[in-house]
């Protein structure tokens, strides 16, 4: 190479190269890793030391009888090398004269579908591999569906191991026919079927002589020219504020990345949530101010007016604003071992905004084989559902199909902080803007003053047989004797009426507590001291009840009785039945109890009698000023 003229040419060519992000998916042993290894190897992008390691490893672990095993190049983790399968998503980088590529190599196993979704969320194209001998499998359909769900519009159907079916056109056509029939409902913009052999390199880089009947491009040729342009820069302006840039009193800017459209200095922009507008005074970067910033640019905007803007706000085009609502319908892919519990509060991260969210109605789940819809109460790992979501405050969003950054969100478990779901917003529900609070003249304070007390919820939690109801009952009697106004909500009693339709699955337990929390809140509003006696085994729901009622009026009372003692007491004979397997999902036996970590009161019942414990609770209320 003759620097510097060649270098200048080379750099100019590099500048012009577009980037294609694609993922490879397929079922186990379809040869994904082998294909990527082959792409790297044949496009001469492997370094000599990598090659030497590869040859060494091929002899040791290889499944190709001493020939180079390309899969070993990409299967990074020790466990994978030993088991011969890919278990996580790995990113690979290569470039040809025409394009740069980032490949997401995603797992084939069903239990790693969430990893595939991860790869798909950042890809423009999916290479779906099919073993020519096996044809379209359940996973093939699942992967095609997830690719379409995550907004991938272009698919390459790579029918691999074509050498093992004697390079047969008939076999190829049959597979293509079956896949196309299924994929018709998925709305891909393009499907390109290519017969290949990753192991021998047929049709991977260049056309194969073994496949004279195939006239289309080889895989790499297709990847180099396929047009995946989404036209994001032509869409309405969207700028989620990531960070307020305030180095000194003279400068206040809003930093973030343009995720849709373009903005120019002098443009009017609207804050989606508050509706306030201002004009863009400067578009600041370290390399000097810009006249214009388009989708993809990371900039800092300075506005002409001092309006209230913080992280999580979205600046948008005033004539084409995003939806602002606290309710929307969305698809949801569940990615956690623990099932989804509708009614439970999760955290939603959408763009730069993080807000609490509940799934208020799970409409259906989707059978990925047939795309049929089935009624569902919950979602298991790797299942896809569709439902209504409700956030605790309004958020700004667009439909996922219009803008991935404005319509894609993750759900986070509030205790483990794990990422448990990925959602794609379909549309906003207008209902939210039409149901307003009715303002009433007589308020909580007026009602409480009339009764001469401060309203509160005494939330008793503990195992079955721990003594919750007994103690709660005594507390209510003592309060009543003092002339207080109270109401006791008891688990068993409520299940005979209000919650008659609920069982004891985790999902139903969550809904049970949600309803009790709402009822308790209404009673508190009426000025009452409410006592609730429910096992309420999950921290999340107790926290939800606390947030619903308000922390100042919520007193969590943990009736701490060891399970051995409860089993011994067994007042209703339930433990005996649960141990015999006659009752399913019994807390402490076949369903977990998550003990409170910071309850306002903890009552140990192993010592002392119920009356003493009740008196201690009444004393607490008096000391804290709930009763005079």
């Amino acid at each position, binding site marked *: *190479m003759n*620097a*510097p003229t*060649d*270098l200048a040419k*080379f*750099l100019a060519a*590099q500048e012009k190269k577009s980037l294609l992000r694609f993922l490879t998916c397929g079922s186990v042993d379809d040869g994904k890793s082998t294909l990527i290894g082959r792409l790297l190897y044949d496009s001469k992008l492997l*370094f*000599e*030391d990598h090659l030497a390691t590869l040859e060494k490893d091929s002899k040791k672990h290889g499944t190709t009888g001493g020939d180079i095993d390309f899969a070993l190049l*990409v*299967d*990074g*983790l020790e*466990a994978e*090398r030993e088991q011969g399968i890919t*278990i*996580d*998503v*790995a*990113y*690979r*980088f290569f*470039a040809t004269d025409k394009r740069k590529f*980032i490949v997401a190599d995603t797992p084939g196993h069903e239990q790693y579908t969430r*990893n595939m*979704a*991860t790869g798909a*969320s*950042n890809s423009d194209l999916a290479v779906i591999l099919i073993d020519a001998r096996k044809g379209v499998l359940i996973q093939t359909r699942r992967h095609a569906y997830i690719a379409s769900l995550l907004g991938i519009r272009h698919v390459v159907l790579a029918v691999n191991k074509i050498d093992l079916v004697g390079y047969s056109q008939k076999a190829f056509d049959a597979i293509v026919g079956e896949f196309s029939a299924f994929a018709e409902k998925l709305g891909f913009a393009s499907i390109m079927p290519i017969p290949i052999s990753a192991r021998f390199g047929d049709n991977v880089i260049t056309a194969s002589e073994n496949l004279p009947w195939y006239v289309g491009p080889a895989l790499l040729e297709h990847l180099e020219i396929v047009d995946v342009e989404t036209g994001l820069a032509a869409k309405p302006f969207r700028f989620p504020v*990531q*960070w307020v*840039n*305030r*180095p000194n009193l003279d400068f206040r*800017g809003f*930093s973030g*990345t343009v995720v849709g459209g373009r903005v120019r200095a002098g443009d009017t922009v609207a804050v989606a949530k508050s509706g306030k507008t201002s004009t863009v005074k400067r578009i*600041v*970067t*370290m*390399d000097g101010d810009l006249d214009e910033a388009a989708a993809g640019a*990371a900039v*800092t905007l300075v506005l002409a007016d001092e309006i209230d803007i913080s*992280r999580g706000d979205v600046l948008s085009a005033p004539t084409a604003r995003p939806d602002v609502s606290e309710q929307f319908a969305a698809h949801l892919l569940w*990615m956690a071992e623990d099932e989804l519990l509708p009614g439970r509060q999760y*955290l939603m*991260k*959408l*763009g730069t905004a993080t807000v609490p969210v509940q799934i208020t109605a799970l409409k259906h789940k989707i059978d990925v084989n047939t795309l049929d819809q089935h009624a569902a109460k919950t979602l298991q790992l790797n299942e896809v559902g569709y439902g209504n979501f409700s956030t605790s405050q309004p958020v700004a969003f667009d439909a996922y199909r219009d803008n*991935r*950054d404005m319509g*894609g*969100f*993750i759900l986070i478990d509030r205790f483990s*902080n*794990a*990422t448990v779901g*990925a959602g794609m917003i379909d549309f906003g529900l207008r209902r939210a803007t039409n149901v307003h609070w009715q303002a009433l003249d007589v308020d909580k304070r007026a009602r409480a003053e009339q009764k001469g007390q401060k309203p509160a919820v005494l939330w008793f939690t503990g195992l079955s047989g721990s003594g919750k109801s007994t103690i709660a009952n005594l507390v209510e009697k003592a309060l009543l004797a003092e002339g207080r106004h109270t109401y006791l909500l008891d688990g068993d009693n409520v299940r005979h009426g209000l919650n008659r339709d609920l069982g004891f699955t985790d999902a139903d337990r969550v809904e049970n507590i949600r309803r009790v929390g709402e009822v308790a809140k209404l009673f508190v509003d009426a000025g009452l001291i409410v006592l609730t006696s429910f096992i309420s085994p999950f921290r999340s729901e107790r926290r939800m009840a606390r947030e619903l009622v308000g922390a100042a009026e919520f007193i969590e009372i943990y009736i701490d009785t060891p399970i051995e003692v409860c089993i011994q007491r067994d007042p209703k004979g339930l433990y005996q039945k649960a141990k015999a397997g006659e009752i399913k999902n019994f807390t402490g036996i076949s369903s977990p109890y998550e003990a409170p970590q910071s309850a306002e009161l903890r009552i140990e019942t192993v010592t002392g009698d119920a009356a003493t414990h009740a008196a201690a609770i009444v004393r607490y209320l008096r000391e804290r000023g709930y009763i005079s």
Partner: protein
Amino acid sequence: MREVAAEFANPVMLYSIGKDSSVMLHLAMKAFYPAKPPFPLLHVDTTWKFQEMIRFRDETVKRLGLKLLVHINEDGVKRGVNPFDSGSALHTQVMKTEALKQALDKYGFDAAFGGARRDEEKSRAKERVFSFRNANHAWDPKNQRPELWRVYNTRINKGESIRVFPLSNWTELDIWQYILAENIPIVPLYFAKKRPVVERDGTLIMVDDDRMKLKSGEEIENRLVRFRTLGCYPLTGAIDSDADTLEGIVTEMFTARTSERQGRLIDSDEKSSMEKKKKEGYF
């Protein structure tokens, strides 16, 4: 980067003085402009870095007006751990991995930027951009958080932390092109120059100070060499090269046939050594 600054209480940027760190730091300067990056830099000094690296580090911090924390594992120094006698594995474990954990615990950092790239090594290819570490700083590759779109889960409990890799999707060539395009200052060791080197086990080691004892038969020669990657001088191999300008380096890169980590003696200690180190808390 702004995501981290906005969501974490006490972030830090690991600064290793190498080219990737230089690029990462440059990006941070851009991301927060006109403000300064709202976090300090942390250099884990093994005491065996090239002298030129330390000089460059101090100049850079001064030029940009940033805060630098330097941490040395004093316990390791006391025990006399060094790359020649202790072996590269123990040296790296004590002076890098242990030292890093000490520093993160000492200052209570809940997020740390690192300049690692996915194209460097196989187990790094599966690293997340936001990589969760438990309270012992360990990485569990089978239990990584799914990372969709550009939406990063930044939530952690007390004691846990997140390692953040802004350069995840960059390749070595991208790094050099960016350094060239943005004219980013880098340590002079990347440029070819006559340097005193010794050939040991097929690798060219630069004699950076008198702590390096020659073995019998070894001779110091002045060769025109440069480094593709920088670490502890006794563990970093030089390459013969006459590329003494950025243009020259990029040209050389374009025709390179070996990967950059080949010059790193610590990676080939044992099979899967990088994955193992990462599980123990290495970057």
